[in-house]
């Protein structure tokens, strides 16, 4: 059994999968892809993952794409320390969370991430070089084109923050009955799916979005105390660390 995870330290979707691998105690080869040199757009990586994004799991030669798919795959193939629900209704409810997190907070967190830090990488490129870089991304081309070197405009930024607040509010409501995890007593891939976004919000200085949401605050502290969290968030996985000191 060989598991290899192609990933970036700082990628929220990579962190989701690392959390599950560590929670389940699964040894894996941590194949760090180099973002700065755009290794994720290189020929060999695109052969593995035509979307040019991370993470990609390779298990005994088979490439598994998409972080939620990877998480559910791992839970199916390695059922010890289960992180899903035992019954179809429970799994349907869990997948409702996964679909919501994929559609709403995961894309929204890119906006403040790019505005705050990642736009610095592109500031000094000529327009031509920037556009060429954008066009090299199989599924993010239009995203980069809209970002257009300067970052997102204020309206898009405000709307992204609104969607992140909605995510926090929904979680607060679900956790309101005092349950430790989103699906109840069991830590599941639903929690793993969203905590990197919450952690990124904290790193971007947006923790105030849950300043008055005590259940979400407690859930975050609870998860952060777990060994899998410490293993996932080793030094160099936060944007504030990667971009420290840069103008």
């Amino acid at each position: 059994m060989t598991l290899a995870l192609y990933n970036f330290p700082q990628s929220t979707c990579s962190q989701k999968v690392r959390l599950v691998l560590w929670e389940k105690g699964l040894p894996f080869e941590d194949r760090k892809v180099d973002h700065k040199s755009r290794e994720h757009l290189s020929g060999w990586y695109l052969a593995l993952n035509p979307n040019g994004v991370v993470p990609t799991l390779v298990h005994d030669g088979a490439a598994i794409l998409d972080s939620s798919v990877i998480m559910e795959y791992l839970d199916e193939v390695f059922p010890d320390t289960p992180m899903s629900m035992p019954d179809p209704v429970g799994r349907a409810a869990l997948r409702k969370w996964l679909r919501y997190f994929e559609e709403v907070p995961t894309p929204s967190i890119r906006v403040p991430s790019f505005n705050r830090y990642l736009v610095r990488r592109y500031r000094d490129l000529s327009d031509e070089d920037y556009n060429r870089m954008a066009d090299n991304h199989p599924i993010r081309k239009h995203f980069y084109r809209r970002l257009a070197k300067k970052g997102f405009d204020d309206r898009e930024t405000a709307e992204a923050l609104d969607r992140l607040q909605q995510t926090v509010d929904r979680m607060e409501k679900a956790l309101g009955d005092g349950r430790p995890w989103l699906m109840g007593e069991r830590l599941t891939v639903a929690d793993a799916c969203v905590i990197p976004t919450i952690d990124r919000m904290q790193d971007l200085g947006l923790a105030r979005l849950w300043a008055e949401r005590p259940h979400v605050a407690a859930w975050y502290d609870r998860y952060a105390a777990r060994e899998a969290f410490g293993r996932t968030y080793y030094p160099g996985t936060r944007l504030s660390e990667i971009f420290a000191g840069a103008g």
Partner: protein
Amino acid sequence: MLTLYHNDASTCSQKVRFTLAEKGLDWESRTLDLRAGDQQTPEYLALNPNGVVPTLVDDGKVIVESTVINEYIDDAVDPGSLRPAGAIGRARMRQWTKQLDEGVHAATGVLSTCIAFRHQHFAVKTREEIEQQLARMPDAAKRERQTRNIFDGVESPFFPGALKRFDRLVGDMDTALESGPWLAGDTFSLADVAYAPYAVRLDHLQLGLLWDERPHVAAWYERIRARPAFKTALVDWFNPKYLPLMAEKGQEALPRVRGILAGG
């Protein structure tokens, strides 16, 4: 321990948050919903009898008026880092900050109401309810202005004056910025901090055309926006309900705006 009572969109609140961020100070946030009248509660009026935001409380000491608060904060740590070193530089800075309280801030309210915020009244109140609310305003001149601004929008008789005031202001800023990168000269100061929220408000109301032909102001605005403190203090607090409203209604108002600026 610093506590700031403030509102997300209020320009005077933005000024103070910007200063706190530039100075790297931690502070406790207490937001007020101005549309809901939080600033008129007895508890808040006990702190700030003017019933406006922001108010800073520093270990029990209450400071009001954003221009005053900003200088207070600048003294708190690394004193004077946001004020020019010499007397003439400080005088220049204060000429700018004083100007805001002498008509510019009021003109901002006129533009914002006429173009965008008037629609928020109509969304939740009948004409009668709006009239009843206006009737309760004690100051007759203010009441008349607010009535015309809400009901007539960009056709209000007060709209052209407010717009032209800003046109003149942006021209004055452009002239000052010919001599240096910042309003008071070579160094970034509380003058730049104070004017940033007004530039942002104009931008959101689609009035950035005021600096289409004022390249120094355009460049100054980009420099302001590039500062990390701008992001944490202003961008992160933008109200997601107001921005689409200001953008859409601002676009609608442009023909009237262009007409007034062209001499109509």
